[in-house]
């Protein structure tokens, strides 16, 4: 697995921050609540390491929103929350009654849209800044372990392939909710992604 250089890591962090900022604005508009999102960590690790780390950082049972993307590089973008936090997040966003134990059908759909907004915002940021086109498929919800969620990625990556691992902190109404975004890149796509990142860095250094 190739590692990220310091510059690559910084740039990807900036791009994700930009996208996440847009996502936060969209969520704030949708809910009339101030939603703050921050990205404390961007890293590259193997899919199996990422799954193990997510299990420790979140919980063995998670809710994931996954979106396939294709274009200059292809893969799956996955947003993951612990199950309990996902219920809390959606109830706060919708100002719904917390007395219900399980997430309702419409709350699940709303969570899908939250994931959709964040993942689309990140991918748009990659597309806009790296000047590439990235199409996305509709979001799919997944419940189970982090390992199962990462394995559900349809891009053909294996356990040893690298994934882009990003932690996200949600801050809303005084609550802090932790989630993660993982980009599982298809075969050859990580290289292509890094090349585009390098090209952008070159453009920046020339100008």
């Amino acid at each position: 697995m190739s590692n990220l250089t310091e510059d690559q890591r910084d740039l990807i962090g900036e791009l994700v921050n930009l996208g996440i900022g847009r996502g936060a604005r969209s969520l704030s508009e949708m809910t009339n609540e101030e939603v703050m999102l921050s990205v404390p960590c961007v890293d590259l690790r193997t899919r199996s390491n990422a799954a193990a780390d997510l299990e420790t950082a979140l919980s063995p049972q998670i809710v994931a929103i996954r979106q396939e993307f294709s274009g200059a590089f292809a893969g799956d973008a996955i947003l993951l929350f612990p199950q309990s936090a996902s219920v809390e997040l959606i109830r706060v966003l919708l100002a719904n009654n917390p007395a219900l134990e399980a997430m309702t059908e419409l709350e699940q759909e709303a969570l899908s849209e939250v994931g959709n907004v964040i993942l689309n915002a990140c991918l748009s940021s990659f597309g806009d800044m790296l000047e590439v086109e990235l199409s996305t498929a509709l979001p799919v919800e997944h419940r189970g372990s982090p390992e199962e969620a990462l394995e559900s990625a349809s891009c053909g990556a294996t356990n040893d392939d690298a994934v882009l691992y990003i932690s996200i902190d949600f801050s809303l109404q005084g609550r802090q909710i932790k989630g993660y975004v993982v980009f599982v890149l298809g075969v050859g796509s990580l290289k292509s992604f890094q090349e585009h990142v390098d090209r952008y860095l070159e453009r920046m250094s020339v100008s």
Partner: protein
Amino acid sequence: MLRVPHKTHATSLENAGSQNKVRLLEGVLDAAELGLIAIAPDGRIAVWNRWIARASSIPSKQASGKRLERLFPEIVNTRLETAVTAALTRGQSSSLSHAFAATSLPLVCDHQDRAAFSRMQQSIRVEPINIGDGQRHCLVHITDVTAIVQRERVLQEKAKRCQELADVVEARAQELTKSNEALGDFSYIVAHDLKEPLRGMRMYAQCLSDDYADRLGDSGLEQLQQIDNQGARLQDLIDALLEFSQVGCVDLALGETSIQGIVDEVLQSLRASLEEKGVSVRIPEELPNVYCDHIRIAEVFRNLITNALKYNDKDDPWIELSWHHASNLKGGVDDDAAIVFSARDNGIGIDEKHLESVFGVFKRLHEREAFGGGTGVGLAIVKKIVERHGGRIWVESEHGVGSCFHFSLPMKDK
């Protein structure tokens, strides 16, 4: 992203003429139980299926070639418009939930029974379609979620009411706890304050008896004795009431406790009375350890054994103490994870009609001085102690043959 191949391999379509293919696809689109709108790269409507025509009251011919925002000006600057633009220009898919700020189209339900929801609640998905000509189209799927919204509103409402009721119960329980505490304090103060004048009355009665015996005469002295007896009785009742009120207030000191040890202590303290009446105590199997308050459960055994001792007129009185797991004893206990203790005697027994009332406060079934007297609070205290441990107490009895008191104690701390 939805990809439609240049050339379909479906045999039926290959064999059909292009006109038939179009009719077949139109038929498929019209049969769909959801709204489907296809938007061309220039933003104009290319497909408007029967479902959306019915829900919007805009026929397909009228919608075709128009821009969506021209038909529905209310969608300008909404998530739906943004999503359609993102699908056409960037190839982005979006899922628009009904739950967030309004995005929906002004569609109407065709069900009469949804009067309150005549405006359709919708879940919308927007997806780019690549048809291979290099230009991107956009497909909008609209699902009617009115029934689900209605069901979930009822569910939310019920959950809210349950929560409100739970809050009321919690508040009442807190009030009750406070009022019980206040009552406990009150009982203590009243009992303490009543005892003092009572002591004074008895003391003055005694003084009268000592100092004026010669003037009072036998009749007067007897009446004075009655005053003192009644005073003593009142003092016993006040003491019993005080003890009863305190059982409910004082926290239990729970711990792993040997019931055999408790019973041995109680029997030791009652040894003189037991020997005097010639009562034999049988314990067929050693009593187990239970998680309970040592002192309180000792009170329970003391009361039950004392009662068995007092209310026995047989020549060979006996008491038998035994135990069972709740699951081995049919009826009487709801909790399988409990141990049931039984105190059986061959005493005078209890009439069936009094079986429930024996646990009431100041409840005596006999003349005040019969069977050694008493305040009638003992079994009420026993019941309160057992219930504070999360257990139950009940009695089986046959008048003239004997009684058997059973009480359960949970095996673990609850």
